[in-house]
């Protein structure tokens, strides 16, 4: 796990470099695709904090797969706050590390998720396979790229979005939904270990007709690689991906950074924080910011994981744990 060491070394180097002039430091352990978002947000927050309190704060980031970041914090990385890709990984801090209380999700508004995203499709320019909705993904001859739900948080959202669509389509007939999702995964030629990996497989390697992706990641791919190469297709129904944030109580109490950490997360809900989220292709919660970015984000019929799956703990156990429904898709094929 060398990348973990690198992030450690990186974090340590940053501490050494910044501790000298800053009044306090704050480490935010986040997941892979939030790099751009927090680079901008951290600058804004540091300015806000300076005018409000006169203190200079050094904000540091650590990025990696959501599950890996959760484990790193449990194993002792002193992150003051976590901003991860799924509530399941934040729950783990409570369950496996005793670092935060079990009801952490009630502490901040909107299920402790200041911004959300959803799952959309990225297709090649002109949409040669005429992909419009989830049904087109199970057709034979369509090649679908999505990462491995066992190793990627984003992939779990993708899988659940498809499952939720199928349940709706077939009137909650679970056997038919299972069949639908099984067919979809039969069209997947490669399961990368992370969401970024799948984006690279689709965009750089030219594999697949459609990439199931985070909405923000799809926008980013469009921005970085050019709108003349790809198109975003929004399905009729998708999942509301709540992206949770939490103060790590054990760490902030030890380091004496609770006030700062709480202000940092609250600032995500402020006008400026919401605007930054929208600018970086995350769907803001606040009505004003949402209205401002309404043109960017097309209207989708969104369902939540609590409505359809009864929350992350249940969904994880039923679908993704060993021997769960996802495993059975592949064991049935053999």
């Amino acid at each position, binding site marked *: 796990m060398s990348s973990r060491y690198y992030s450690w070394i990186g974090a340590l180097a940053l501490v050494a470099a910044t501790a000298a002039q800053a009044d306090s430091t704050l480490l935010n352990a986040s997941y892979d695709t939030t790099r751009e978002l927090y680079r901008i947000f951290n600058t804004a927050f540091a300015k806000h904090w300076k005018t409000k309190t006169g203190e200079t704060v050094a904000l540091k980031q650590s990025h990696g*797969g959501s*599950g890996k970041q*959760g484990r790193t914090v449990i194993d002792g990385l002193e992150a003051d706050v976590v901003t991860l890709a799924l509530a399941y990984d934040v729950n783990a801090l409570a369950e496996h590390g005793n670092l935060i209380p079990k009801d952490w999700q009630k502490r901040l508004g909107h299920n402790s998720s200041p911004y959300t995203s959803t799952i959309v499709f990225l297709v090649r320019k002109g949409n040669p396979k005429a992909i419009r909705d989830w049904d087109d993904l199970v057709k034979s001859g369509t090649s679908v790229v999505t990462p491995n739900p066992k*190793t990627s948080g984003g992939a779990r959202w993708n899988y659940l979005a498809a499952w939720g669509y199928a349940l709706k389509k077939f009137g909650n007939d679970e056997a038919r939904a299972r069949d639908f999702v099984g067919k979809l995964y039969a069209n997947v030629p490669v399961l990368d*270990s992370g969401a970024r990996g799948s984006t690279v497989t689709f965009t750089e*390697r*030219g594999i697949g007709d459609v990439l199931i992706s985070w909405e923000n990641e799809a926008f980013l791919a469009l921005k970085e690689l050019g709108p003349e190469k790809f198109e975003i297709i929004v399905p009729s129904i998708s999942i509301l991906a709540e992206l949770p944030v939490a103060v790590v109580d054990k760490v902030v109490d030890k380091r004496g950074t609770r006030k700062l950490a709480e202000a940092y997360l609250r600032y995500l809900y402020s006008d400026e924080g919401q605007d930054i989220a929208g600018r970086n292709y995350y769907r803001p919660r606040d009505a004003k910011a949402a209205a401002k970015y309404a043109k960017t984000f097309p209207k989708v019929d969104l369902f939540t994981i609590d409505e359809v799956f009864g929350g992350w703990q249940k969904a*994880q156990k039923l679908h993704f744990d*060993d021997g769960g429904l996802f495993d059975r898709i*592949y064991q049935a094929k053999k």
Partner: protein
Amino acid sequence: MSFALRTRHSVLPGFGLALGFTVLYLSLIVLIPLSAAFIRTAGMSWEAFWRTVTAPRVLASFELSFGAAFIAALINAFFGLIVAWVLVRYRFAGKKLIDALVDLPFALPTAVAGIALTAVYSSKGWIGQYLEPNGVKVAFTPLGVVVALTFIGLPFVVRTVQPVLADLGRELEEAASVLGATRRQTFVRVILPAILPALITGFALAFARGVGEYGSVIFIAGNMPMKSEIAPLLIVTKLEQYDYAGATAIAVVMLVASFLLLFALNLLQWWARRRGGQDS
């Protein structure tokens, strides 16, 4: 008792001290971290352990990891020997450059190797675009795993065989030839026995490295359950579920299996050395 004789002439001060240091050093560097893996699995019941490590997906991944590492090590043993031979026996322009190239798989971050190999062998890649129409799929198949492991294992064979070949000297071959041996006989009876122990060591190193390799394989394997999932990936999937015990259970099986295989290879090497008459 060649053993006692040697210690008397040893440069290191005293056998006891040297052995004590060896054991301490090995403990700190190797045994203590490894024992952590065993301790973490100790929390599991025997049934849970057995169920974890004999799950069909886990067995499929063991088969792939050990199988692909074995094939890759065999390929390297053959071609690595040729590379070593060329580097030792011939002089040509650019020899130093090629010599340095051999070490490249060592130095390259494994993820870089994986990304590069995938780019080359995927259906749109330089090589992949010619292979795929002919029915050979490399990227995202077990074959891709073998390719990646062959890449990273090459230096192990070349670097272990090279010095032995260099020491061998042409005189031996000349003597064999003067005494009437054919080329084939010279190779099989004279050269091969001398380099066999080194070749086995190189093979064992390449194999061991391949079994545990993660970074370079993960990009090219495609990670399809039951087909192209390597065992280290399953360890990561277990960790992703916060199933530390399950992850270390797989790790323990890999450790024990690797140890037994390496031990067997060591015995084989010892036998080859005796047979080769170099029991020094």
